[in-house]
């Protein structure tokens, strides 16, 4: 087992990893930018190293700075958290050559899953349903028009090296395709230095369903059920839950089996998430693999009883999955109860304008079935340089109704003063009859009028 782990991240996820390390008796090293000098993750780690100024590119994304911090503290492993360097295959490689164990998949797997096209091909070969789309990269306008005819409009053009919604264009008919194709290529070249595009059928207002993966270094892959993350605004998740009311036991088993095959074939190790869209017929379509731990991992932890971050560390240290999971390998895994997570952001609840600043009043809710993952505190500062996540509020209950009731109660008692937060927005969503009935999809916020589209 590792003696010392450096956490290459900040905020709540850095604290989350510190928690797992403390429980496993592993010493921790935090890295922090000048803007995070007084942050909780730097204060609760055993050691902390300032690695740069506030700007991410010169601190949390600065590979030499992070690796040097590991060197001078004699860390033996690095946990990258989510975002930042977590899916950077080059960083994973530098860790290896610097004799640091990277807690995540191998560089080759990160690279493969990071190429949307390669991931689609790998999934299709294993029988995982993928969205009808182009076979590989679009060659030119003629090719694109042909593919679009075959799969049927509307279609989505996407950047192969892309993410975050860039290099993406929705095309409703053949007339608009040529110029939208050119736009997408220009955007992709600028953002990712690779203008390669592919095409997928557009599913309108889908449900977003994702499956949690854990795999050890010996070829054993387990799927720990699904999460539904349909409440989103502009591809940013606001509320996640497990299980999904739209996923039957049969569907879960069928998809889990084909994912096990697919991920074993690509040599997947450690934690990951496979994302799908569900159309209005209840069919799942693969979109991408995130080769890291995700923000919303707590809801899976609540309904499976598995500490995913500790599992990541133990897998990286060479332990076998059968010694980490509480059920026999290959046995049907059951999800117990229901968990919901609200991402409390530092933003105005209606305009969603970011609201960084000093927290002048702070009260965390507690009580039965409530978990809060946060690095915020009274008198703490939410800096303007990073994401706006203040806290993750997770409610767990015997069923979805109890989880909702506990979440509403907890939101009422969550006090944050000095900055705006999305708490009132979450309260509105939880009250809405469609949410309570489970009638949700990625168009929920606009459809219900809870949020107006920005012009």
């Amino acid at each position, binding site marked *: 087992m590792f003696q010392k782990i450096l956490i290459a991240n900040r905020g709540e996820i850095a604290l989350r990893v510190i928690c797992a390390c403390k429980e496993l008796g592993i010493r921790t090293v935090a890295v922090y930018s*000048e803007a995070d000098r007084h942050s909780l993750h730097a204060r609760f780690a055993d050691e902390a190293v*300032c690695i740069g100024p506030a700007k991410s590119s010169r601190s949390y994304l600065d590979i*030499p700075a992070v690796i*040097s*911090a590991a*060197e001078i503290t004699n860390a033996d492993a690095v946990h990258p958290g989510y975002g930042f360097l977590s899916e950077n295959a080059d960083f994973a490689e530098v860790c290896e050559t610097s004799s640091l164990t990277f807690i995540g998949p191998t560089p080759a797997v990160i690279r493969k899953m990071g190429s949307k096209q390669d991931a689609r091909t790998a999934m299709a070969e294993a029988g995982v349903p993928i969205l009808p789309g182009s076979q590989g990269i679009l060659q030119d306008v003629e090719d694109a028009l042909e593919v679009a005819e075959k799969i049927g409009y509307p279609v989505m053009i996407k950047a192969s090296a892309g993410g975050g919604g860039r290099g993406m264009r929705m095309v409703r008919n053949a007339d608009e395709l040529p110029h939208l194709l050119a736009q997408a290529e220009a955007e992709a070249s600028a953002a990712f230095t690779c203008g390669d595009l592919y095409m997928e059928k557009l599913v309108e207002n889908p449900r977003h369903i994702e499956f949690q993966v854990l795999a050890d270094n010996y070829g054993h892959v387990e799927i720990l059920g699904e999460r539904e993350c349909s409440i989103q605004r502009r591809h940013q998740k606001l509320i996640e839950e497990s299980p999904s009311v739209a996923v039957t036991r049969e569907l879960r088993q069928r998809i889990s089996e084909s994912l096990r095959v697919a991920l074993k074939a690509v040599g997947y190790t450690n934690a990951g998430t496979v994302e799908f869209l569900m159309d209005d017929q209840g069919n799942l379509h693969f979109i991408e693999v995130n080769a890291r731990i995700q923000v919303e991992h707590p809801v899976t932890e609540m309904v499976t009883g598995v500490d995913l971050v500790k599992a990541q560390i133990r897998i990286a240290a060479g332990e076998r999955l059968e010694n980490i999971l509480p059920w026999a390998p290959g046995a049907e895994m059951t999800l117990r109860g229901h968990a919901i997570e609200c991402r409390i952001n530092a933003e105005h609840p209606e305009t969603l304008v970011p609201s960084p*600043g*000093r927290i002048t009043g702070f009260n965390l809710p507690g009580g039965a079935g409530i978990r809060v993952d946060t690095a915020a505190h009274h008198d703490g500062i939410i800096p303007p340089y990073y994401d706006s996540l203040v806290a993750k509020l997770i409610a767990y209950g015997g069923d979805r109704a109890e989880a909702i009731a506990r979440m509403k109660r907890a939101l009422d008692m969550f006090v944050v003063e000095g900055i705006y937060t999305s708490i009132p927005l979450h309260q509105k969503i939880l009250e809405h009859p469609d949410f309570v009935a489970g009638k949700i999809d990625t168009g929920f916020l606009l459809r219900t009028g809870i949020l107006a589209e920005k012009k």
Partner: protein
Amino acid sequence: MTNQEIKELLKIFNESDVAEMEVQRGNNRLRLRRAEAVKEMVVPATGHAGAAAPHAAANPKASTEPAAAAPPSTDVLVKSPIVGTFYEASSPEAAPFVKVGDRVEPGQVLCIIESMKLMNEIEADVGGVITAQLTENGRPVEYGEALFSIRPR
């Protein structure tokens, strides 16, 4: 400029190290200046403005004031620009690059910070006399850690 915006600009100004700030939005202009004596601001010879400008200000102008006659010395601190291990000399057998009392010119190599097996030469930004060495040979240093103090000429 609404009262809320003014309040927010005040908050940003108070939480920063900036001595003076002027913001123009449309026809409104707001200038803020600290009342108390200003600590000396280090303006490196390379001309790079170090203070992080408040993010929300539309056209911030941070100006530095001359050093007040304050108890802290007028020495300039040489801070590490990277994380790594501090070495006084180019090799274990070589003599240190500088010692206390030496005169140095801008651009003169003061020490080496080793990072990922690469030796980075750290140069003086200002000319003057080395008044102190603030870390030890072979010690790890973090970003921003003080290495030397120099009394500028």
